[in-house]
């Protein structure tokens, strides 16, 4: 082959490689990128249909209307009955700024009628009905309103659920925003440093503080002797760092049960070392750390460090400080799992989807995430949680005539003002409601500020929520 022919062939091959790159990129784009590009809110195609389609309505568990659409002059308009109450759960659907919350995650159901089978999609394509499916939530409207009222003026979150089913009964995050005026206020809201657009219940990552002692307690039961007495002197120095108790004089001689009720830091910090990092990590994973908990909303994953960074770090982990971070929803799943005898149910927000004609298209099935601990551990842990409210740090959560169990937490954080936690459930013998309250940078203890709010939530839930729908 002469030089000219060789060069011609090289040129041909390079052009063909160029075309092959185009084909390769188009395939890559279609497989991996197209979905995200298509859903960009600047894509006018997303809206051309939605202007004509009436989004389905959203109701609470009792059928109270929360959001619906109305057509005026052929243009669909979304109406939210409550300005702020559902700003993080239902979210918004705005042409200008996109979608959030269930409006986003259930968009295809809200705009599309009937089941999403191939045949129905084809029928829909040829003859669009113009009305979307309806959603029925697990939320109880009166409990939701109560939760927001109890939280008002504070920063933080309240989440409540039925521990036996996983139905979320209330989910409030403050500060929030007004969905009906969001367009006008977008700049102020989106730039607000207190992050009102952020759903603290599912996205907020907080050090769990003493609530995490639930995990450490399981570790003590498994790896150490829970009946061994420990002498608390108020402080303990681990690897040069001092861990101290709120009670500076010390709690004296303690078993696990007493240490848990009094939330003794020195006890759990010391015991964490006996348990060891890998065992504690194992328990944290069992409780849902380092794994995404999906409820159809933007959410973060709770973190338990997978690497060991020495004794000080491990001791801090034992009392829920250090590098551990948890979402309120995750803590709710944990306390619910214990309430439900170790069966951790998957939390969910939407119970049913119905067609515009009222036919049920899909109902959410209750799902077990996993079985936590063995029955001995859980029975003992439940008794310990009961004792916290009866005689320990959580006394402010107790209700007359109803046995409440729970755990308080006061989490130190870089702002210097403690987060106040309470996670609990009631009634003790037949748990119907589990609740988590976190007050961000409240500056007081979980027992004094979060526990009374949790109590009021549980009272309201037990009196008003129809659990047997």
């Amino acid at each position, binding site marked *: 082959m002469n030089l*000219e*022919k060789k*060069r*011609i*062939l090289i*040129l*041909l091959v390079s*052009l*063909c490689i*160029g*075309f092959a*790159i*185009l*084909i390769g*990129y*188009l*395939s890559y*784009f*279609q497989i991996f*990128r*197209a*979905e995200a*590009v*298509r859903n*960009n809110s*600047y*894509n*006018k*195609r997303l809206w*051309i249909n939605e202007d004509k389609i009436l989004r389905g309505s959203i109701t609470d568990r009792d059928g109270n209307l929360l959001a619906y659409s109305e057509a005026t002059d052929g243009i669909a308009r979304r109406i939210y009955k409550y300005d702020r109450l559902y700003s993080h759960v239902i979210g918004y659907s705005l042409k200008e700024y996109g979608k959030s919350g269930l409006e986003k995650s259930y968009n295809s159901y809200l705009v599309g009628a009937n089941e999403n089978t191939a045949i129905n999609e084809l029928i829909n*394509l040829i003859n669009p009905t113009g009305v979307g499916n309806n959603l029925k939530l697990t939320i109880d409207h009166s409990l939701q309103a109560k939760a927001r009222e109890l939280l008002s003026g504070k920063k933080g979150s309240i989440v409540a659920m039925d521990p036996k089913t996983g139905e979320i009964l209330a989910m409030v995050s403050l500060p929030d925003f007004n969905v009906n005026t969001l367009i006008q206020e977008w700049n102020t809201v989106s730039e607000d440093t207190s992050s009102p657009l952020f759903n603290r219940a599912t996205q907020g990552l907080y050090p769990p503080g003493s609530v995490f002692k639930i995990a450490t307690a399981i570790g003590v039961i498994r790896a150490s002797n829970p009946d061994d007495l420990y002498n608390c002197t108020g402080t303990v120095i681990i690897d040069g760092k001092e861990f101290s108790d709120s009670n500076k004089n010390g709690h004296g001689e303690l078993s696990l049960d007493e240490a848990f009720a009094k939330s003794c830091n020195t006890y759990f910090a010391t015991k964490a070392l006996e348990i060891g990092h890998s065992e504690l990590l194992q328990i944290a994973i069992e409780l849902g750390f380092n794994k995404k908990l999906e409820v159809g909303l933007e959410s973060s994953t709770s973190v338990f460090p997978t690497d060991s960074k020495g004794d000080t770090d491990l001791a801090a982990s034992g009392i829920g400080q250090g590098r551990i971070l948890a979402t309120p929803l995750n803590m709710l799943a944990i306390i619910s799992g214990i309430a439900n005898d170790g069966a951790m149910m998957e939390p969910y927000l939407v119970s049913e989807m119905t067609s515009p004609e009222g036919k049920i298209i899909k109902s959410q099935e209750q799902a077990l995430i996993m079985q936590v601990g063995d029955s001995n551990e859980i029975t003992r842990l439940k008794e310990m949680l009961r004792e916290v409210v009866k005689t320990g740090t959580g006394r402010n959560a107790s209700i007359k005539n109803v046995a409440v169990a729970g755990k308080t937490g006061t989490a130190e954080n870089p702002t210097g003002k403690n987060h106040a936690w309470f996670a609990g459930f009631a009634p003790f013998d037949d748990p119907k409601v589990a609740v988590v309250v976190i007050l961000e940078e409240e500056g007081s203890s979980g027992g004094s500020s979060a526990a009374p709010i949790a109590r009021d939530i549980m009272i309201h839930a037990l009196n008003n929520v129809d659990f047997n729908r």
Partner: protein
Amino acid sequence: MKNLVDGRLPRRLLLLFELMSMSLILLYRRDSLDIKIVALAIGLLVVVYGANYILSRLSDGDLYIFLIVSMLMSIGIIMIFRISSDLGLKQLLWLVIGIGAFFGSYFMITKLSFWESLFPVYIAAAYSFFAMTLILGDRKHGAINWISIGGISFQPAEMTKIILVFILACFFSGRDKFSRYKYADYWMMGVIYSFIGLLFIQRDLGTAMIFMGIFTGLQYIYSNDRKVIRANIGLFTIGGIAAYILFDHVKVRIMTWLNPWPYIDNKGYQITQSLFAIAEGSYFGTGLGRGNPSFIPLSYNDFIFSSITEEMGVFTGIGIIMLFMILVYRGFKIALRQDSKFYRMLALGITLMFGLQSFVIIGGVTKVIPLTGLTLPFVSYGGTSVLSSFIALGILQGASEKLTREEIR
């Protein structure tokens, strides 16, 4: 050149394709059937089938390139008609004129033999086209590459591309003649760079890239002095960097190529709209008439590929790329079989032109390379583009035949 397969079979397959796509158009417009659609349907069938038939009688050269082009222009005109029926009919008219020009250039290239000796004429013609553009030019879509004479708009650069191929073919095939002059290679390079510079002034970056590509490709094959090639590549690199630093419109192209999303409602509007359309199309497209290609600016012109992908799917898009790949393959094959050096170079230059132009614009609208405005040959709407592409194709057709009267070098 003897055809291995009976030429009638692919022609009939093409007819089948045309019939099916026409029924699709009829179905799409079933509610508003009018004379326009019928005219388009019959017109396209007659033109495409007729032209292929006549060609098979006339030429003993490569019959596949015209079949490939028929396929491309059919897909193109269906899409253009779907976007605007008036433009569709106009495009049909342009195709008829273009096919006429194809036969015209085919005859002229095969029957006349003075093409090799017109080097100074080509140079003069190229510069006068540039001068015309600069003096009479209108700015359209950011580039000054249109001139209007008596109400007819015209893009001289489309024609200059073909002239460039002739200039290069003359130069490289007549090396003996030119080697009398000292630094002939550098003089040639200077001329080509002056063209590219003029295109830069007109802000016609796409065409500038094609000029550069054709020149570098032919230089790579035929220049014995490798120093010149190194000089060319070095100059190109320096020029590219200088252009990026000096010209804002070049910088914008690069920025919106690297990440168009922050500029979604201004500088990055075109490319993001194009990506939306391609994403919307998915594998099989939304179906003819069911997408929204009108959201893309210049949907029937520079961005026709995105419009086609939206409604006919990425598989059709890949099909179009493959058609260009086969066209390029046939073009190179024609060159390899051609004994006359001059015609061989013409074939190579034209094939490079089709190949590079389709690569640059498809790569541009899919964000593989920075976007520069160009038409997709045979597919995009536009008189000058259709005309110049068919003239070039006619030359390629001529070059595919055995031209015995040429002295074989």
